[in-house]
C-alpha cells in the first residue's frame, strides 16, 4: 500500500509537468490543426531563459516570469513570421509540421551554441534537499511546487478561456473556424494569442523540469513526443482530455516499471496508445473532430 501511494504521488508529479506542456501543445493543435513540434524547443528555451535570468541575479519568481514571457514572444514571432505566411500561401498541414520540425532543430542547436550541451539546473535552494514525509509517502518541496504551479496554471487558463472575450473567441475558433469567422471573430488575432499562451505554458513546464531534474538543449524533443501521445490519449480537441492523458502517461511511466523492467516503459506507453486508438480512436475525451472537419 505504501508503495502504491508513493507511486501515485510520484506519477502525479511527473504527470503534472507533462500536463502543463501538453495543454500548451493541445491549445495550439486545436486552433492551428498541425503537430507544432517546435513546442519542444520553446519548452527548452523557457528553461534556458529563466536559467540565464537566475544567473544574472534575478529573483527566481521574476526569472520564471521572464522565461514564460520570452516564450510567449517566441510564440507570437512564430505565428506572425512563419505560420501566417504559410497559411496565406495555402500550405498544407504537413508543410507546417516540417517547418516546425526544422525550426526545432535550429533552435536546439542555437541553444547548444550559446549555453553549451552540458546539463543545466535552475537552483531553487542553496541548502540540501530534504523530502517531507506525509504518512508513508515522501514528497520533495520541488515536487509539491510542481503540483501547485500546475494547478495554479490550469485555474488561470480556465478563467482565461471561460471568463474573457479573447478566451471565448479562442474556444470558438477551436470548435469551427468558418463559424467563428461568420460571427466576426478576428481569427488572426486568436492565432497570435493561442501561440502566446501555449508557448508560455511550454516555458513554464521547461522551467519546472530544469528546476527539478535539469535540462539539456535536446530535452524538448522527447517531451513534445509525449505531449503528442497525451493529446491522442486524452482526445483531440479536449483540453481536459489532454491534461488527463498527460497525467495518465506520468502515472504509467512511474507504475509500469514495478510490473516490468523500467526499460519497457516506452513500450508500455505506446502499447497503451495503440490499444486505446484501436478501441476508441477519439481518445478518452475526444470530440468527433474528424467528422466535423469532413
Amino acid at each position, binding site marked *: 500500500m505504501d508503495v502504491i501511494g*508513493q507511486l501515485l504521488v*510520484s506519477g502525479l508529479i511527473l504527470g503534472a509537468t507533462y500536463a502543463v506542456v501538453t495543454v500548451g501543445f493541445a491549445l495550439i493543435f486545436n486552433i492551428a490543426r498541425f503537430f507544432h513540434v517546435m513546442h519542444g524547443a520553446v519548452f527548452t528555451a523557457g528553461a534556458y531563459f529563466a536559467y540565464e535570468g537566475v544567473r544574472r541575479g534575478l529573483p527566481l519568481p521574476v526569472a520564471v516570469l521572464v522565461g514564460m514571457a520570452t516564450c510567449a514572444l517566441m510564440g507570437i514571432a512564430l505565428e506572425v513570421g512563419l505560420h501566417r505566411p504559410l497559411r496565406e500561401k495555402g500550405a498544407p498541414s504537413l508543410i507546417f509540421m516540417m517547418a516546425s520540425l526544422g525550426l526545432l532543430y535550429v533552435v536546439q542547436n542555437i541553444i547548444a551554441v550559446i549555453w553549451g550541451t552540458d546539463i543545466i539546473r535552475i537552483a531553487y535552494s542553496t541548502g*540540501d534537499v530534504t523530502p517531507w514525509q506525509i504518512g508513508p509517502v515522501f514528497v520533495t518541496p520541488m*515536487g509539491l511546487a510542481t503540483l501547485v504551479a500546475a494547478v495554479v496554471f490550469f485555474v488561470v487558463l480556465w478563467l482565461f478561456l471561460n471568463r474573457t472575450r479573447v478566451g471565448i473567441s479562442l474556444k470558438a475558433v477551436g470548435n469551427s473556424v468558418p463559424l467563428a469567422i461568420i460571427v466576426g471573430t478576428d481569427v488572426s488575432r486568436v492565432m497570435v494569442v493561442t501561440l502566446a499562451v501555449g508557448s508560455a505554458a511550454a516555458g513554464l513546464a521547461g522551467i519546472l523540469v530544469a528546476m527539478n531534474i535539469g535540462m539539456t538543449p535536446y530535452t524538448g524533443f522527447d517531451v513534445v513526443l509525449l505531449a503528442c501521445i497525451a493529446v491522442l490519449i486524452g482526445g483531440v480537441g479536449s483540453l481536459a482530455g489532454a491534461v488527463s492523458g498527460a497525467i495518465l502517461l506520468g502515472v504509467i511511466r512511474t507504475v509500469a516499471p514495478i510490473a516490468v523492467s523500467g526499460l519497457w516503459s516506452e513500450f508500455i506507453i505506446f502499447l497503451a496508445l495503440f490499444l486505446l486508438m484501436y478501441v476508441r480512436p477519439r481518445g478518452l475525451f475526444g470530440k468527433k473532430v474528424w467528422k466535423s472537419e469532413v
Partner: protein
Amino acid sequence: MRKGNIGFVLSSVLAVVALLLSACSQAAPPAPTAAPAKAATTAPAGPATTAAAPATSAAAPAAATTAAASAAAATSAAPAAVIPSVYAIGTTYPLGGVYQSIFKVSTTIPHQIAIDEINAAGGIDGVPVKLIVEDNLGTAAGGVSAMQKLVSVDKVPAIITSMSTATVAQAAVAKDYNTLLINPGAVTDALAGASPWLFSIVPNQSLVKNALLYYFAKQLGHKTIGVIWQNDDLGKGTIAYIKRVAPVVGLQVVGDVAIDPAGTDFSAAAIQAKTWNADIIDLGVTQPIPLVVKAMTDVGLKPKALSSSPGNTTSVGPDVIKLGYGSSILNWYDAVQDYNPQRLGAAAQAYAAKYEKAAGTQVGGPAFNNYEAIYAIKALIEQAKKGGGNFYTGERLRQAMIDLKGNITTPVESFLVNTSDGTCLRPLTIVNVVQDATKTGGYNLSHELQSFTLDQVKAMPR
C-alpha cells in the same frame, strides 16, 4: 584459335618470369632493416620524421626510412630510430550532453596537465607530445567512428579510451587498425581478454567490487544487497558479477532493476528498490548517478550503504552535491585504487594541487588514471625507441608493453598490467564520503577506511 594460342604462350612466359623473380627475391639474404622498412609504410604519414642516425635527416618518412636502413645495414646493432616530429596520441571520450562536465573533470584536465608537464620538460627526448581528442558519443558506434578518424586521418598509433561500451567496441577492431589502446577508465569485466591490443591501467570492476563486498560483509556486517543497473555493458557486468560473488562473501541479492542510461526520471526504480529493504544499494550506473541518488532520496530511500562503479564518488559525487543531495551520499562507499597523494609522494601531491586548482574539485581515481595514461604511453614510447627503426607504431608500442612485462611507472605510481589479458592490478582502498568543511565543496570524497595491498587484492576470490 591461333590468337588464343599466342596469348596462352605469352601468359605462360610471363608467369615463369614472375616466378623466377619471386624466387630470386626470396633467395636473397634477409636485410636487417626489413622490419623497420615495412613498419615505416604504416607509420604516421602526417608528422615528418627524422632518423636518429648521425648527421642524417629527412623531411619525408620514406627518406628517413632509407637513412635508417642505411645506418642499420652498416652495423649489426639495432637500426636507427625513426623519430617523428611530434608524438601524436589519440583519445576518445564523450564531449557533449550529460557527459560533458564529468569528462571535463575526469579526463580533459588530467590529460592536459600531463601533456603540459611532458612538453615543458622538453617532450620525449626533445620531441613534443600532442593529444588529439575525438568524441565517442558514449556509444559503441561513436567509439569505433572516432577511432577510425584518429587512425586514418590523424595517423595516431595509440589511443586512450573511455567508457565501457565504447572501449569494448574499439577493442574488437583494434587489431584491424594496428592501434594500441590504453584504458584508464572503463571498468567492465568484458574488457578482460577482449583484445591483445588493449591494456587497462585501471582495475576492472570485479577486482574493486571484491574489496567492497568483502568490506560490507566482513567489516560492516551487512547481509543484503540490491542493485540498480543501467542497461549497457557496464550495468550488465555489474549485476552479473554481484550475483556471482555476493553469495561467496555472505551477501544475499534481494533485488535488481534495470534503468535506461539516457533517462532522467528514475523514481520508479527508486520506489522498487525501496521495497527490497536492502542493507546495501549498489549503483551499476555512471552518468545518471546524480539523478538516481536524487530519485532515491525523493522517495525516502536511504540504505545503510551505497556503492557504485569505481571512482564515481570523486567523478560524480560533486554533481550530486551541486544538485542539493550531498547529505544523501554520506554513506556512499567506493573501492578505488590507491590515489592518496600523501601516501604516494611529492609528485602525486604536486599533481593533486595542480588538478584541484584547475578542476575545482578533489583529485580521484579517474583523474589519476587519465593523468597516468599519458605517462604510460610515454613509457612505452621510450621502451619502443630502444629497438630503433620505425618504433612509433601500434605494434611496436604493444610489444613495448610486453617487453616491460606490464610494469609501468609514472611520476605518481607504479602498477602492473597483466599482458596476457590486459587487466590491471593495483593496491586498493575503501573510501566513503564524509562532511568536511576544510575540503572543496565541504565534503571529503575519499575518506579512507581500509586499504588492501597488492598481495591481498590478488588473494581475493573472483
